[in-house]
């Protein structure tokens, strides 16, 4: 059986190999700091396997994360000059290869699709071929490897250094944004164990009017939205808002339809995810990947949609759930 952890080791190894390249890159004025950041990230990926199954302490990993934060936040990381092709060379190559170039890029989703849909039905030596529940993640990894081999054969690229180099300059241009989503997930956990959720619940109950269903719907929906903006995802907001308003007021007092109230409540949280930099993997990482000058560009594009949809949710819940 292919395990998800093996794939995390591969990602960790990739980070570490790139870190070695970075340390040797004389065009990067801060090469040692940069190499330390990505090297620690890679080592953390591997070490995490034992943290997850509780056979190693989490504290050293936590300390490494704090070191990474300091390296990135206090300007010890930088980027080298990318040795890459010029626009003219790219245009010439595009003319030469034509739409064949899409083939490897489309291989990634195609393999992911096969792994998610077909492979779970196969068995290998009495067990599933891919670890259960991780099929799509593993599919992405297998797809990336197949695509890489295909691209190298197709483009007659003999050296593995070329794709590594290309990947490295993309990583260097993203910089600290890479670590942010994982760090925010951590913050969510810390908020939860420190009782931030409970406090917000108490606050919400204090401002909650007990007379009209419509106001309670608005409090639940807007509360989910705002709480998600603060926490970065609806998963942390949902139990708190549902315990404070959703269940006791909307479902028990007002006899709302439970699936409707809860499903739409969660979707109000998703509207919040569209507008918060705390949801870095959806909003900040794409901005870095697309090399936008304004890191809030995607959020600005999503804000009107999010607000209108929040309104839609309030209307749908008021109209159909009671």
């Amino acid at each position: 059986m292919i395990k998800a952890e093996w794939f995390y080791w591969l990602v960790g190894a990739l980070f570490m190999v790139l870190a070695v390249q970075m340390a040797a890159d004389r065009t990067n004025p801060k090469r040692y700091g940069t190499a330390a950041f990505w090297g620690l990230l890679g080592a953390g990926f591997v070490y995490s396997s034992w943290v997850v199954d509780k056979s190693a302490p989490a504290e050293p990993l936590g300390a490494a994360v704090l070191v990474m934060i300091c390296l990135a936040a206090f300007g010890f990381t930088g980027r080298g000059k990318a040795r890459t092709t010029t626009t003219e060379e790219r245009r010439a190559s595009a003319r030469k290869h034509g739409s064949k170039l899409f083939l490897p890029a489309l291989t990634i989703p195609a393999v992911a699709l096969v792994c998610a849909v077909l492979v779970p039905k196969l068995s290998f030596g009495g067990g599933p071929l891919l670890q259960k529940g991780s099929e799509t993640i593993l599919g992405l990894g297998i797809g990336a490897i197949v695509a890489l081999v295909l691209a190298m054969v197709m483009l007659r690229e003999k050296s593995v250094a070329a794709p590594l180099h290309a990947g490295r300059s993309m990583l260097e241009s993203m910089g600290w944004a890479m670590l942010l989503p994982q760090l925010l997930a951590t913050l969510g956990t810390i908020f939860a164990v420190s009782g931030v959720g409970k406090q917000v619940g108490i606050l919400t109950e204090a401002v909650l009017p007990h007379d009209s269903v419509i106001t309670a719907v608005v409090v639940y929906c807007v509360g989910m939205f705002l709480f998600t903006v603060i926490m970065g995802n609806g998963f942390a907001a949902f139990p708190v808002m549902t315990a404070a308003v959703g269940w006791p007021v909307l479902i028990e007092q007002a006899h709302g339809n439970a699936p409707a109230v809860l499903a739409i409540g969660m979707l109000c949280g998703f509207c919040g995810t569209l507008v918060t930099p705390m949801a870095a993997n959806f909003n900040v990482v794409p901005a870095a990947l697309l090399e936008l000058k304004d890191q809030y560009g995607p959020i600005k594009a999503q804000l009107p949609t999010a607000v209108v949809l929040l309104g839609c949710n309030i209307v749908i819940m008021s109209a159909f759930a009671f």
Partner: protein
Amino acid sequence: MIVLLGVLVVIIGFATRRNPLLVVGVAGIATGFLGGLSPQKVLAAFGDGFASSRAVTIFVITLPVIGLLERHGLQEQARNLISRFSKLTTGRFLTLYLVLRQGFAALGLRDLFGPAQTVRPLAAPMAEGAAERRYGTLPDKTREKIRSFTASADNVGLFFGEDVFLAVGSILLITGFANSTYHTHLEPLQLALWAIPTALCALAVHGGRLLRMDRTLERELLGARVELATEEAAK
């Protein structure tokens, strides 16, 4: 009440545009201490959080192949391809992308598309290419706007598509929480059905905004060109 100070740190930090890593790190440490965790527990929380959230970072595995293809002209070819379909404007292309993204997410295939796999190498250059065919070289501001909207189509499609699928994390979270806390019995199917009205609204609202982008682009870019031409004429 005092643990909410951590939330305040986050809001102020992001509003004043400090380095987000530093903001989140400080907020985490502060909240942990205010919430009565020992320094050792805070460190362990950072470690556990990192280890259990690695899945959000694995898209890097696609970067080497995407980078290699880009060096050989993938983005240029995406632009070439789109310019053969003269009816496919930027807005229409992005709406099509939104529909596909939402449709596949509703079938449970959320990792098929994504910022690293499809937005950067394919969708964004195609959306730009469609605009370039009409208006020539784009100003940086327009380029940023088109890219931001491509990212937005990806997110909106994903968020409001995936909840229509039964086995997605958020649906299972709802049933898990409600069934264990309130001793009720909710089925994932009931919840997924109630996600459909909002999914349709999302498609209409965001699709409408994407289609309207064509008009905005025309106004901005043709307007700018007229201005430029009158300036030239005045000389």
